[in-house]
């Protein structure tokens, strides 16, 4: 009859892990992009600017995702023999937008402006987006988590505004 703590211990462990799973499942599921875009090739080998495709970076609140039109301006004729590249032309031919999925997203109650951070404050993309530019395949999840903690630590370091109302609208 003695020495049967495992039952309660197991219950304890089980409930903890279940709770943990529940909490975690709320966030971040893996993201699959429609086209296997290679950031490394574009930014490092071809040395293209981020703003070439994310045209909103310096002037807009949102960086914006490239429209099919932007892609086709270089890829109208095949540049490589990749099947992925062919998809661009397919989308374009069907007059469809490429259904890019957003990887980085701030909640809607946050008033984040790329213009403010890039143009006015002169921050590097990598500051928030991590090593996105050197990714050879579309990452399944954001290489750098966007969290309020991260925002705040940077704001404190750079002595930017840390009033709630500066970011929360």
């Amino acid at each position: 009859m003695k020495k049967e703590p495992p039952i309660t211990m197991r219950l304890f462990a089980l409930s903890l892990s279940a709770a943990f799973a529940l909490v975690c499942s709320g966030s971040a599921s893996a993201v699959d992009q429609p086209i296997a875009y290679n950031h490394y090739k574009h930014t490092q080998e071809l040395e293209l600017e981020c703003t070439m495709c994310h045209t909103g970076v310096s002037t807009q609140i949102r960086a914006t995702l490239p429209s099919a039109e932007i892609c086709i301006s270089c890829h109208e004729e095949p540049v490589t023999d990749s099947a992925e590249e062919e998809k661009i032309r397919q989308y374009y031919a069907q007059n469809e937008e490429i259904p890019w999925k957003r990887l980085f997203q701030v909640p809607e109650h946050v008033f984040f402006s790329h213009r403010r951070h890039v143009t006015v404050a002169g921050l590097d993309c990598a500051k928030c987006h991590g090593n996105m530019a050197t990714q050879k395949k579309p990452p399944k999840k954001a290489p750098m988590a966007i969290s309020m903690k991260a925002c705040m630590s940077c704001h404190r370091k750079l002595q930017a505004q840390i009033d709630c109302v500066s970011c929360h609208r």
Partner: protein
Amino acid sequence: MKMQRRDFIKLLSSSTTFGLAYGYGLFSRLPGISGSEALAKQLEDVSLRPVEEKWLPSICRQCAGGCGVLVRVYGERAVKLDGNPLHPINGGRLCARGQAGLQLLYNPDRIATPLARAGNRGEGKWKPVSWDEALGTVGEKLKALRKQGRPHELAMLTGAQRGLERTVSERFMAAYGSPNLVRYEPDRSLGMNPALNLMQGQAAGFTYDIENAAHILSFNSALLEDHWSPVQLFRAYGNFRRGRKENRGKLVHAEPRLSVTGAKADEWIPIKPGSEGILAMGIASILIVEKRYDENFVTERCFGFDDWTDESGTLRPGFRTLVIQEYPMDRVVKLTGVPRDIIIRTAREFARVQPALAIGNDGPGVRHQGIYNRMAIHALNALVGNIQKPGGVLANARPADLSLPPVSRDRVADQGLSRPRLDGAGAERYAVASDVPASVTDNLLEKKPYPIEILMLNGANPLYESLHFERLVKALKQIPTIVSFSPFHDETTQWADLVLPDTTYLEKWQLDTTYTLKGHPVVNLSRPVLKAPFDGRDTNEVLLAVAASMGKPVANAFPSTRIEDLAKLSLQPLSKGGSGEPFGAPMEELWTRLLEQSGWKVRTEVDFEKLWADLLERGGWWDPVYYRWEWRRALATPSGRFEFYSLGARDYFAKLTGMERDMALQKTPRLVNLQQADAACLPAASRARAGGNETLYALEVNPYFIPILSGITHTNQPWLQDVTGFHVYQNWHTWVEIHPETAHQVGVHNGDWVFVESPGGRVKARVRTYEGAMPHVINLPVGLGHTSGGRWTAGIGENVLKLLQARQEPFTGQEQFKPARARLIKT
């Protein structure tokens, strides 16, 4: 198994942890409660592509004020309206109505496509049709009517149309051959202007230089509520109060009700409804008796102050005689209910503090002030010589000529145009009136002077405005075809056969002349600032298209089929030079004005395309120079002077024959000592008494326009509806303001629902006790009670006009309200 204490505690703590964590996980991911879809949806379209954000100039047309707006266009959406800082009328400011303009543009109750009637008339059943089909139907009907040689049987009722829109309607009707283009806006046009026209002659209109006045004596004028150009007036008011360092303007306001103007005034004089003119005469008598009037001005520039002899040698009474004989102080005190000392004090102050303005009503004639009362009020301005002075009454400068070449007409059109008008304007009794909406109902019903075959409703909603609802419905039923251009399902549109939904002002072209409060002409130019959210079409373009489809003679009415070209063509003359320029920054303006007034600056011809681009960018053109000393423009009367005794009125009555003359004279005030013929030409103020049984209907009715809704054609705007009666905490329904003691006497309490019953009808209203109501006078707001037109206006409140009865004003034929009495019945 035997549970140990320790195990138990572990179990307890683990289950608690689990519970908390589970709850946290569950709650933080609940669908529906955590997100705001509206914003997510709104932001989705901008996540992919860069969004262009721009501010485009346009004109606000929520009322007739003519303010310039900038529309914040974000991508393809208009998200905010603000004032155009360059615009001389509003200088970057905008009033509540202007701010709410987007609720008109994005109104969910707008008619989305052309509709053809599906059920019986008035039933409200519709089927959508294509624009081609709808235009085809209209074109064919019009063609057929014209072919039969009856083009005059087309009638078009319009709202307060102006500028290019007016031009299009006029040209269309002229080329088609119908004289029946009637502005249907009863009661609303009779401000001070008819009275000023009698005393100062016809001009391009008059204005009060409020900003520079030192003292304003307001006779029930809705200065801060219902001025034709509210923002301009508010700006001027701000400067009147605090614009000058030492000299704070003083405002004295006489009105039966404590209105916003009354509340803002330094002194509020409660006065019996309708006795404003008599008070003015009382003040005039003090000025005359105490010799406080401007003798210089009166002798130099006025006519009819003293008695005078006419051509036949008869001695005619002048203003002085009228005042002394007919308005002894006792009578004034009795009729107005204003204590003698207040009248004397007011009069002395009016004479002492100069420049002082006496302002009657600028807005609707809902407060029973006839033309004679307004003449009496205006006479005060002449007595203190405050005409064409800074801070005085100014005649508007001549507008820029924006006319297009005349319409070439064929024989059918000429014949049609030679027929008398449906409303009788321009003939006999209405010889001086341009539109007489008051007679439309009767004439339609009696088919006088001929039946109407096709009726077009272009911005008019007669069923709401009319005091003869039943008769008008009957008349509408008789008309074979009714086409409505309304963007909303308003009351009259319910009786149409075909609805061709118009667009709202941010979606169309317009070119329009208006004036600043200092008499400068302003030309507004607006263009569509964004793609229309509904499949409506600008009515002017529709008329152009219909005209084009009708072929040669009618199609010739317009030099182009594009409305934009018409605007360009109209503006051509501006490039030829002369005075005036596109809107500029205030400093620039000041400089120009200085240069021009001293004759240094001469404008030369400019490149039209550059001017056009400038106008589009800045929103319009104006002439910042005003010449005060052009007396011939300001006093365009037969005598060339300010006429206390209006020779214009005498001529008018002389022109009328027999019956007509007697009928018109009957409507003029009765005087005790003077002849009727003289009374008809002098500012013979009188107080119309409210009819009805005084014991049964113990309360006098004082209807007034809801400031925030006045001038608005389509009240289906929840922002505005929500702030209607803030001073009595009432919105979204009609209320009746009553003095607390009177309420106690008639046995009602604040918040009760009652029927207000007059001999004419009854409306349901909520009692609001209000210290600012005169005892035994109830105040009722006008502007609510639409029966259709959208979710935020249909069934909201009641139409107070139902309580009132009409009478016609002798000169203009405009419908005015008879003073009414009422009683409250608890529901």
